[in-house]
């Protein structure tokens, strides 16, 4: 039962209050995109053992979506941040670097 803090309302919530929404920072490939770009967008996902970026919704709370950086092996949460961003903020990256120097996740490091 994970605990995540909703950056929108500030509530520290049990997993039962939240709904997972898959991988974060997926870039939309719309009309004009190539077949392989569309396939990547719709189907290709990361499956790391270690730091990962996820979408969560405070479904039984304020209803807002937010993003979380989490270690899939140790379950450590490096932080949560608003969904209105295209890349993880600096303080989240720094928290990951502290545990996993030299980490990479897609284009981020």
């Amino acid at each position, binding site marked *: *039962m*994970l*605990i*995540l803090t909703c950056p929108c309302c500030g509530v520290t919530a*049990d*997993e039962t209050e939240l709904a997972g*929404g898959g991988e974060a920072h997926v870039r*939309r*490939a*719309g*009309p*004009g*995109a190539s*077949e392989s770009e*569309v396939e990547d*967008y*719709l189907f290709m996902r990361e499956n790391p053992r270690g730091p990962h970026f996820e*979408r969560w*919704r405070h*479904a039984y709370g304020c*209803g*807002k*979506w937010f993003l979380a950086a989490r270690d899939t092996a*140790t*379950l*450590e*949460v490096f932080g949560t941040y608003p*969904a*209105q961003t295209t890349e993880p903020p600096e303080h989240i990256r720094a928290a990951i670097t502290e*545990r996993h120097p030299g980490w990479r996740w897609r284009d981020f490091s």
Partner: protein
Amino acid sequence: MSARLPTGGRLLDRSQPLDFTFDGKRLHGYAGDTLASALLGQGQMLLGRSFKYHQPRGLVASGAEEPNALVGLGEGAFFEPNQRATAAELHAGLTATSQNHWPSLEHDVGAVNSALTRFLPAGFYYKTFLWPRSFWKHVYEPFIRQSAGLGKPPQEADGSTYEHFHVHVDLVIVGGGISGLAAALTAGREGREVLLIEQTAHWGGRAVVDAPQIDGQSAEDWVKSALQELETMANVRMRTRTMASGLYDHGYLMAYERVSDHAPATPGPRHRLWRIRAEETRLATGALERPLSFAGNDVPGVMLASAVRDYLVNWAISPGDRTVVVTNNDDAYRTALALYRAGLAVPVIVDARPQVTGALPQAARDAGIRVEPGRAIVKVDGKKRVTGVEIGLQLGEGGAMEHIACDAVAMSGGWSPAVHLWSHCGGKLTWDEAQALFRPDASRPPRGDKGQPIASVTGTANGHLGTAAALADAGLELDVSEPAEEPMAPVWIMPQGAGPALKRKMFLDYQNDVKVSDVELAAREGYESVEHAKRYTTLGMATDQGKLSNINGLAVLSGALNAAIPATGTTTFRPPYTPISMGSIAGAARGPLFQPVRRTPIHGWHEANGATWEPVGQWRRPYAYLKGAEDRHTAVTREVQAVRNSVGLLDASTLGKIVVKGPDAGRFLDMIYTGRPSSIAVGKCRYGLICNENGFLVDDGVVARLAEDTWLCHTTTGGAEHIHAHMEDWLQCEWWDWQVYTANVTEEWAQVAVAGPKARAVLESLGGMDVSKAALPFMTWAEGELGGLPARVFRISFSGELSYEIAVPADRGMELWEALLQAGAAHGVTPYGTEAMHVLRAEKGFIMIGEETDGTIIPQDLNLGWAIAKKKEDYLGKRAQERPHMADPKRWKLVGLEADGGAVLPEGAYIMAPGENANGQRHTQGRVTSTYYSPTFGRGIAMALLIHGPDRMGEMVEVTDGQGGAITARVCDPVLYDREGERLDG
């Protein structure tokens, strides 16, 4: 024979005798007994049969780790199978039944399996699947079916109630032995909020049985004074009969309280599930004694040395007149001394260690007990009961040097810390070579959300086996007088050189009948990983989860692989620690509380007027209204005809209603819908489709433009919540700079469809706003007053008839419904349900989400291209619909089907194509998506998806009839009723 001694038993209240039954036999015990101790007190040692060979089995242990003594408890609505007799407290009238045998416990036909031992080796379950095929059907399967399974499931609905507790504390301590009590004293004195839980009914753990002197008093008195002090602390809560079942992600601890199993007449819940969030979880879970592996170690009468001691000290049970003790450590000598002090005979202590020099062995020798170092039990004699043991050299191959008559054997293979909870959530273990045990590795704990350790371990569970060491580990440095112990010897098999014949009789896992020979066979066959060997042999996979067998099995595997134990590693412990009831997991969420029922404002009227229900999401919608003796079919036919010929009423309140508002609302809806809602004029309505990014159709409904910046989106009944969530997802996560606000207002409105040629007449007789064709043409809406009610009237139709949907504030819904019934009385107004609604829409060829769609259907498949704004640059799903498979002309497309002779085609039937595939299955070219009896046409009608469907009008196809045959049907236009749309436009 086991028997009750005339005196003693620290937990017994002999002034309170209790009657109970076992397999219908009336037996007697005392308050304070467990079912296990009471049965032993009555001489009942044979308690069950093993799973695979149906070997006779008796009690091995005295606590939660017991593998054999599983019984059914209670009767009828209170029956529960697979309960451990050692964990069942005796109460008056307790009813216990033995299980896994036929026809009786004493004479079990299945025991013939034991004669087949050689043919049921490790991996039996896998091997039988292979060859020969006919053997599986005629030999293995009937055999496995007859012998498989433990207890029988209850036959009645559970008569007990259950509940959940949600608890937040600073510190939860698991285990009420002296370490747990010491930890609670320390934390309680610091003022921390503490919850201390203990799985049994008693505090003090092993210390009160083994009786060291603590702080100048007996262990019993020390425990009493600790409890007295804890009870005065307002910040400390204590619960017995509460077992921590699992430690989960981020430190979530689940505990299982058996509130009234011991006193069934008590009002209130039977079990309670505690869902605990603690800043810190301290595990003081103690240790479990290990059996030794010698031939015949499963014969009833062979027990753990600590269990023999527990039964004797706690419940005054003599395991038999003569008990042989066999050990690889000093602790078992406590059992010999306890038996001696109780006046019972210990003919010999068989000690595998070559040198035995400790204080406890010395005390045994001083008492005149014969001690035999360097010796092993070669074999146990007896079948349903121990009659004696053969003794030989531990270093030998099994030659018997001496036969010793006895009726019980007390064995000890050393102790294993109970590390289960530590391991549940990823805590790692370290091998302690000196004590030959795995203990928690404090440097690799299970971790929480901040990377912090979520559990710590204290006392015996931490590998501190002595009383003084355990107390010190828990934070109390106390004066303890206990004899010093010499090191144990890591002896796993007795004797060391035993051959295959003996190893086939050495049991590791009693409940699943896994023997030393099975684990060695698994290793020989290449199952070298401990996780593979576990699954191949089923070692540790029974309901006791290998509490006794784990380390021994591991040691045997390591021996067979010639590897060190830590190199072989352990299997993963999984929750729950011991089984918990399904009722406790459900808690109060059962029956009407299982999930909430959503009711429309008109629900009560439906209920009172013959509604037969169809669940739709959490709503209950009337499927049809049964009048008098009508069946469903007759009612549906009547309702359809009423709508076609006069007028009907449908409670449409459950339809989703989402308001979308803001400067960018039009632009936003143009992305959500395949069409262009931004171009709907204020006062107009338009049908819209919503696809996901994969291009698949997920919802449909009528969109009405309420104002320049406001739209009302109708969704399907089941779609309201997830379409609202879908909109919010895109607004919050992709187009967060667009100024749009959405609100799900589904429950704020009651909505009634008035459909049929007389619909306008009914509304006109209600009085109020102008609902004429000129004022309110098809696909428009208007706001006004109808029959004195504030209303929004939508001129939309899902039936193909002249139709109005009238929305009023929810609290006026019942008024509207009754006004419409009254105003329509002259026309025979008829309430209709969801099935008539389905038939009406199918006659008209309207698709239904969830019938024509299943998550793999795009609008183009349903000939709904007209609802897609093709010139629009973008909408959700647009790009995906251009992918090659989506644009493939061979996709199945919507058609109607007319079966020969007017038959109703089966739901989900396939349209067959010539030939067969590689599996000998008929090729298909389409399938039926909707099929009904049409009262309007007097025959069956169907909608279907068919390859090249729209190009094949008039063609005959073959549809599966569900019984291996075929029905011939003609491909036709799915729109059967009023193709010109005159009625709905009327």
